[in-house]
């Protein structure tokens, strides 16, 4: 009898401990979006706030695990790349239901792909699937098997399906019928979006319990970061997805267990010089900016370690090239950032005909080296970086004027009038695959910022990058793709069309009341595993 009692008490203790570790089912997770989602239609998503809703509500065939960066089966139990990278076949999970109870089948995948690729819809996610002239062909092989054939090879195509939330072809609720862990319950414009647990969500945890644990997620629309921080500190919010370094350090001092530095993100900050041939700049300045030696010398004169330490409070890494080490698959190992060496930089400039007289740098024709850098007003980190670079370059005798502009004016200058000399901006990267950078590296691309929309590559190295980027985009062999893109990274470091400065760390805050949080470097950093997040028992009872 005593043994039975001990066993019973032991069992109770185990259950209680397990409950404490896993949190309790129910409760409402609260956090902020910094702006209103533009759409709830997953195929029209073009902004990160709509993407947050799509991530939490949409069911996808394949999910890229944000922590391991590996592809994992979701609605598809398996997939196979065929025809030398021109086709893919999915075997689908059986017996699944959309949130409104309509069954899931291959017809829904076909319906979604047709909607996504409809040229009248202009789906941003659909654009990634256009591998060449001609339309992809979608074939339903049986109710649980579907094949998609593309007109030409599409490298890394499996990863693209991470962005494709499957729509129901039969539901009267259209895109409101979802296969993800949550479904849209309420939206009050400008105030909040309320998501509730999808009662038909198919996933279960290791103990066989239904996921998600949370009953609902409330996303408040809050632009002001200070208010967001204040609400988090008061316990009114459970997480802050991205924190700036100042707030991170302040929170870390108050509650070290609530902040997470997931290391370098995919986002980089960089500076580039205007190399557009028709830009309204003096010819001698165009000659400076087109000179590889000039760009490399200035790159060596920038103290990236100081920028990381002072501007980002140590929550950043000096950057070497277009790919951050956070990108485990595509980062070119061994690529080091330029060493800070003002003396070598000055020697390099002197070798190109520049001379320093009385602390002022002149070019070979006697023009004083002075130029401006523009950046977007209100971004404190960029403004601070620009001022630090101003002091670094002053050591060479270069006078740098820092000009902050409102974003529309800045975009007008860098994209239309080309009336600027250099610019400091950053890239926010969501997709680790090099195909996501095609619109930057191809010389004909509009985001080829230093000299966009070229009819033909104007330099030999740009022609080489064009060739390599096209080759990697059509190669079926991942090793070949890696080799091609490694070479692109090497050329980018050698020629320095972008002077890469830092890779920002992914900083977030999660309340200790949230269980199973494991923030990652990739978006959505702190709620990528939302289905497994749970709240402490006292909060789990609340809605």
């Amino acid at each position: 009898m005593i043994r039975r009692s001990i066993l019973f008490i032991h069992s109770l203790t185990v259950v209680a401990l397990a409950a404490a570790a896993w949190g309790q089912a129910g409760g409402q997770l609260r956090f902020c979006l910094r702006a209103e989602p533009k759409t709830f239609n997953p195929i029209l998503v073009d902004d990160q706030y709509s993407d947050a809703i799509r991530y939490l509500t949409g069911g996808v065939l394949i999910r890229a695990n944000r922590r391991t960066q590996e592809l994992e089966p979701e609605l598809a139990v398996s997939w196979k790349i065929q025809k030398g990278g021109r086709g893919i076949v999915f075997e689908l999970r059986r017996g699944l239901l959309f949130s409104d109870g309509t069954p899931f089948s291959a017809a829904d995948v076909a319906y979604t792909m047709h909607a996504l690729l409809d040229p009248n819809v202009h789906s941003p996610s659909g654009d990634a699937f256009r591998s060449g002239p001609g339309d992809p062909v979608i074939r339903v092989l049986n109710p649980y098997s579907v094949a998609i054939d593309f007109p030409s090879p599409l490298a890394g195509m499996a990863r693209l399906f991470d962005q494709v939330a499957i729509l129901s072809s039969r539901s009267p609720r259209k895109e409101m019928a979802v296969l993800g862990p949550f479904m849209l319950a309420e939206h009050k414009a400008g105030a909040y979006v309320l998501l509730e647990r999808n009662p038909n969500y198919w996933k279960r945890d290791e103990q066989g319990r239904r996921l998600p644990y949370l009953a609902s997620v409330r996303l408040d629309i809050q632009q002001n970061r200070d208010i967001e921080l204040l609400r988090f500190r008061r316990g009114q919010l459970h997480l802050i997805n991205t924190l700036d370094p100042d707030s991170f350090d302040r929170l870390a001092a108050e509650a070290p267990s609530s902040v997470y530095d997931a290391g370098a993100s995919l986002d980089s900050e960089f500076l580039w010089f205007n190399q557009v041939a028709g830009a309204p700049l003096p010819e001698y300045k165009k000659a400076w900016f087109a000179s590889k030696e000039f760009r490399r010398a200035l790159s060596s004169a920038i103290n990236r370690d100081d920028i990381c330490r002072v501007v980002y409070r140590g929550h950043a890494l000096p950057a070497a090239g277009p790919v951050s080490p956070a990108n485990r698959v595509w980062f070119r190992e061994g690529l080091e950032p330029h060493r800070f060496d003002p003396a070598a930089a000055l020697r390099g400039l002197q070798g190109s005909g520049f001379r320093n007289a009385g602390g002022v740098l002149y070019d070979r024709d006697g023009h004083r080296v002075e130029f401006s850098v523009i950046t977007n007003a209100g971004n404190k980190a960029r403004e601070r970086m620009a001022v630090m670079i101003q002091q670094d370059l002053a050591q060479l005798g270069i006078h740098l004027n820092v000009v902050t502009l409102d974003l529309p004016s800045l975009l007008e200058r860098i994209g239309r009038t080309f009336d600027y000399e250099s610019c400091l901006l950053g890239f926010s990267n969501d997709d680790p695959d090099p195909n996501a950078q095609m619109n930057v590296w191809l010389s004909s691309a509009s985001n080829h910022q230093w000299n966009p929309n070229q009819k033909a590559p104007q330099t030999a190295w740009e022609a080489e990058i064009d060739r390599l980027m096209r080759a990697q985009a059509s190669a079926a062999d991942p090793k070949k793709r890696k080799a091609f893109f490694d070479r692109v990274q090497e050329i980018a470091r050698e020629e320095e069309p972008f002077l890469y400065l830092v890779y920002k760390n992914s900083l977030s805050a999660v309340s200790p009341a949230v269980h199973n949080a494991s923030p990652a470097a990739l978006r959505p950093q702190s709620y990528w595993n939302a289905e497994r997040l749970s709240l402490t028992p006292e909060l789990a009872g609340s809605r």
Partner: protein
Amino acid sequence: MKTVRSIALTVLVIVFGAAVLADWVAPAPYARQFRSAPNAPPSRQFPLGTDELGRDRLSRLLFGSRVSLLLAPAAAALSTLLAALIGGGAGYLGGRWDRFAMRSIDLFLALPWLFLLLTVRATLPLNVSPAASITITFALLSLLGWAAPARVIRAGAQSLRQADFILQARASGCRGAHLLFVHVLPNLRPVISAQFWISVPVFILGEATLGLLGLGVTEPLPSWGNLLRGLESYSPVVSGPWALSPILLLFVVMSCLHLVFPGREFST
């Protein structure tokens, strides 16, 4: 009251003196970044601590005071002068002059200044020296800031036109410039003076706002405006009371100016 005014005057002399002599008084060059000591608390080396880039706050405050204390009053004076001429003239002359001036003021106040400032920024070159950027900034502020005071001054001038002492002066044969300068303007002086003192802090803050459009005092030159911009978020404010020194100095200087020149504002 006399003692308070004396103290206020002493404070003003010290602040203005320190601003003018900043080259000698400041502990460090205003642009120098002590990168090993960003956000440092006050110490013997940095009496007011350092900013986020490790620049000495006291030095930046002194050099910023020089820029703002010389140029904001200058811009306020120009703007008030324009307001007095247009508003005062309209109110005093009345009739079609008044109607024309009022429509112009209304039009001026209704213009979408943000877009016009963006156009101004677009037409200016990006490589502008700090001295030129300061001049442009405060010239813009004075040219933009006259319309609202002009309305107030015009109302004052209009009420004076019907005042008994003006009617008596007219009845005595006083006309034109003599009437304007001897009887009207001295009685408008309190209104004009008040508009001037109101304009000074508004222009100091306005300069900070122009910085968001790329038109303010450019880095690394400090001004009270761009020092105050550092306080626009929560973190710097709670990081230490020394971060509040620019706003404290602005408050002290403006209070002292009001204490030193009270009679000119409100006497009639």
